[in-house]
């Protein structure tokens, strides 16, 4: 993820401010837990809101709250945006 982290304008999901949204632009590949996260809606193009920071943190995606380890959230890069956590950007 270190290379991807350098993509301009993108921040790690665990680093956005609580109450703010981000559009998923990149996520780790080949890891079972990341795939589970994707199947729960945290995948490319989805809008995700950080409800509560910390470790684990709480996300809202597609109207559902997820409790996610910060270590896992760090593998997701988002483009900060406005709005709520329903649907696609």
């Amino acid at each position: 993820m270190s290379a991807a982290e350098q993509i301009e304008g993108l921040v790690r999901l665990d680093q956005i401010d609580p109450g703010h949204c981000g559009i998923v632009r990149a996520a780790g590949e080949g890891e079972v837990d990341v795939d589970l996260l994707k199947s729960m809606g945290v995948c490319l193009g989805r809008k995700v809101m950080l409800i509560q920071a910390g470790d684990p943190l709480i996300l809202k995606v597609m109207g559902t709250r997820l409790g996610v380890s910060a270590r896992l959230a760090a593998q997701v890069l988002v483009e900060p945006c406005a709005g709520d956590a329903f649907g696609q950007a």
Partner: protein
Amino acid sequence: MCGRRFRPGLEKEIRLITGTSVGVGRTATEIGSELLVALIGNPNAGKTTLFNALTGLRAKTANFPGTTIERRVGHTRLAAHRIRLLDLPGLYSLSGTNPEEKLVRDALLGRLAGQRQPDLVVLLIDATNLERNLYLASQVLELGLPVVVALNMIDLAEQAAIDVDVERLGSELGCPVVPVVARTGRGIPELRGLLESVVHRPWTPTPLEGVPSPEECEGCPFKARFDWAEQVGLRCSAGRSPAHGRRTDRIDRVLTHPWVGVTAFLGIMFAVFALIFWVAEFPMDWIDRGFATAGVALGTWMPDGYLKSLLVEGVIGGVGGVLVFLPQICILFFFLSLLEDTGYLARAAFVMDRLMRRVGLPGKAFVPMISAHACAIPAIMSTRVIEDRRDRLVTMLVLPLFSCSARIPVYAILTALLFPHRPVLAAVVFTGAYSLGIAAALGMAFVFKGTILPGESRPLVIELPSYKLPSLKTALLTMWDRARIFVRRAGSIILAVSIVLWALASFPGTDPPAEAHSMLERAARLSSAGDEVAAAELTRSAESLVSQHALANSFAGRIGHSIEPVLRPLGFDWQIGVGILSSFAAREVIVSTLAVVYGVGESGADPDSRSLLQTLQQAERSDGTRVFNTATAASLLIFYVLAMQCLSTQAITRRETGGWRWPLFQLGYMTVLAYLCALITFQLLQAAGVT
């Protein structure tokens, strides 16, 4: 570019397995035959509640992700068919990346051993969150099996001002859709009617417009499928109250707070245990009196002899001593079910994750840990959701340290010995016993992380469902289910062990001691002189002496005496030693063993026949001191919190780890831990003058 036609992703696979063409022209089985119907859906979609509503059978409500680890089967009857309903684990996709997904995929493809492919699938979709649920729906529909969609929680959708176009949704998915509220039974008759009509007509799957095929799709397959789900969701539902979910957010601010959340968790568990003591006291007293009365009645009616002794001491004393704790078990599971159903237990897992990760346990271990408070056996089996072998092994090794329901009778009797008729202090001790089990499990996990099983645990991913009112019916069914298991256990293992123990405690018969003879002669002389009260008292003392002499010289007594030197530093006498040995097969047997070896109900016709608690409170050593003083009761409590003492758990650990190495290690470390902690407790209390 993704394809925009029906994607028969698994079609070839199914055809290879079943030898048939999937879906097209598929017809229902003949009238009168049994249909196999699979129930599938996301976790927290209300799947198990629907299973209960359709079959009336008991199953735990899956409001906590991952609760339904194994498929469950129930039966129901339609007008022309008998239905065999498979309750499959809740899941988010059919990708097969974890054991649950693989299990469900295998079940739907007819790959499970001894089970054919389902004739029909009931796909549960949460009406309050179409988009999320449609992801799995798209994968299920692609299998080509006949599908009926049950659109659950339509009442909550209405409350949130979400307007779902049911007809449009049916048209988009190419299958019938029926709105239901599984919790209240709304829509269930219509769902049953739909099942009947679907199985009576040929089924031809309709292509899903816009769902990508992995062969044709570039980029992220999750994205393309969620895009489709979102488009369908937008076309089929409208509106969403801005207030939707705010209540859950507000509650979560408190219950998921790093410190407040943990405090709330401990407070909630304490409140549950306090309620268990207050509410259960009355029915427990009724049951206790009922068994005591039965013992007296049988003792009066039957002539003296081995049969009377077997029935009064072995059966009534042994089984009754355990069944008296049934109310506490019922109340515990009633409240656990309510907590699970509200959505709280997922928060408990969330707040506990920080702590668990520090000791090397994965977040997913919390689900088996909650189950372990019922029984370690299903808990160890449910560790299959943990993919990583190290994480799974550590979890399995420490799970028996969590206080299972079999320990409740032991805790209850020892707590009552420590603080009789003081429910607040009893609740504190009970909570302490549970907390010690949790602390020991976490501590041992930490030790394993730093020694024999080094490494980091897998990260947490858990859905935090919206809070909702729990289902009283589900809680009652769960309670009934657990009570049935407990009573069945009391009627089988505990009864068998009680009878064996009675035999060990009754044979070989020995001649009464000379002192008893002289006491009886003195009693006879007192009776002739008209002093009936003194005569009766002396006769009782003589009978007690005979019993103690017989037990001390019985097989059980000899075994107990032989191990007494090892147990004496823990404050245990040879009778408790017999109890510990006999309860190796099942922990709760210690209670029935104590009832047998301390002779509950043995006075037979005596109208003052004492209950187990009274007997243990009054049990004395040869030097006249109480056996169950504070130090011994506390030491025994600590021992039972930490000791393995369950043969069934050992057997299941062997099966899940594929050998005897780990179960033997588990038995060894737990026994040593229990012995050392009980030793320290007893010696410290004695040194402090607490007896």
